[in-house]
């Protein structure tokens, strides 16, 4: 393939150029980064999932199977907290045990956490963590062991550790993070999320892979003149 500098301009200019470009856009060919967006939105969903339920916690129902005092600690079995966020979407948080040390009453250690929370009006997410400690005073939640978030839209995230500032609606994870969805996957050495998921920052060794089927899907997504793809 050699370059032949032709005297005649390779493309007509002006209006016909636009027509030419539009004609091109009708052809069913892959667009270079058209599908990048679903991938990026996946990340925002992860972030939002992380704090959406915590940020707007309005506990209505708290059920505890049994409470016992064991060597200076209150141990609650199978606590379940349910409520709705401010757009009336239900959430629930279950744990096998909640342990509160009388010496540090503000700290509640939760074990085998399963939290279901709304992410957007059509997507919900489930956070499962073997352990987490909730600091009522500081309104912070610390996950010290690897945990997962999965959404009903087929996206999952694995984090090693994370600190959630519930009041601020932010989450920081200074350990490797991996997010995968049918369209793409992202790994990074750390992730910071602010403003209830509206801003997510991945740092150090960010690597995003967009899967071939996402690339194909973009190819087949019929795009009409207004340029919006019919998903």
């Amino acid at each position: 393939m050699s370059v032949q500098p032709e005297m005649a301009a390779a493309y007509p200019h002006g209006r016909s150029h636009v027509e030419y470009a539009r004609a091109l856009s009708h052809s069913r060919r892959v667009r270079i980064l058209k599908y990048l967006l679903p991938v990026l939105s996946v990340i925002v969903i992860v972030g939002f999932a992380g704090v959406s339920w915590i940020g707007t916690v309005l506990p209505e129902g708290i059920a505890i199977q049994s409470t016992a005092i064991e060597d200076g600690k209150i141990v609650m079995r199978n606590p379940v907290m349910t409520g709705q966020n401010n757009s009336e979407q239900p959430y629930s948080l279950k744990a096998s045990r909640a342990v509160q040390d009388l010496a540090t009453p503000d700290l509640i250690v939760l074990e085998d956490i399963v939290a279901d929370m709304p992410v957007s009006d059509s997507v919900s997410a489930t956070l499962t963590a073997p352990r987490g400690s909730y600091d009522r005073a500081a309104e912070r939640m610390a996950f010290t062991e690897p945990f997962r978030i999965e959404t009903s839209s087929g996206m999952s995230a694995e984090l090693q550790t994370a600190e959630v500032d519930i009041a601020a609606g932010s989450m920081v994870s200074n350990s490797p993070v991996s997010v995968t969805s049918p369209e793409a996957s992202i790994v990074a050495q750390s992730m910071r999320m602010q403003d209830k998921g509206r801003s997510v920052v991945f740092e150090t060794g960010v690597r995003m892979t967009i899967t071939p089927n996402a690339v194909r899907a973009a190819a087949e997504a019929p795009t009409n003149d207004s340029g919006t793809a019919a998903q």
Partner: protein
Amino acid sequence: QESGSRMTGLALKSDQPIQIESDKLEINEKDKRAVFTGNVKVTQDDMLLQAGLMTVYYKTSGDSVASGASDIDRINVSNKVLLRSGTQTATADTGAFDMGAQTMVLSGDKVVLTDGDNIFIGCKLTVQMQSGEAQLDACGGRVMIQLDPKSRPKK
């Protein structure tokens, strides 16, 4: 005076994954933007795009970024842009992808397009992303062409 060429490598293959690497990625829903900073590399097969900064802008009309429905409007790359596909490489100061028109424009004081041993220098390279056809403009000046003097016998 323009010279036309084809960067077929740029026409993406729909059976290959695309890899994006960077030091940092910030996604901001309020401004509808995703910003890759630091050693940004976008690769698919033998196509490589490198830049110091890549910003992806979403259409504001779309739903929120979180629901993934909004579409990409355009992508800008800057800070030492390099595009390599097949035997061709192009270097420039900035690059702009217009998703609607499916075009990519690399511009800068010196946009250098090399194809094998031939070197073309202009100030603007317009590439049709689907066909890979590229057009180098000299913005008023003349496209400087340095053809490999194939005729000279190789030593």
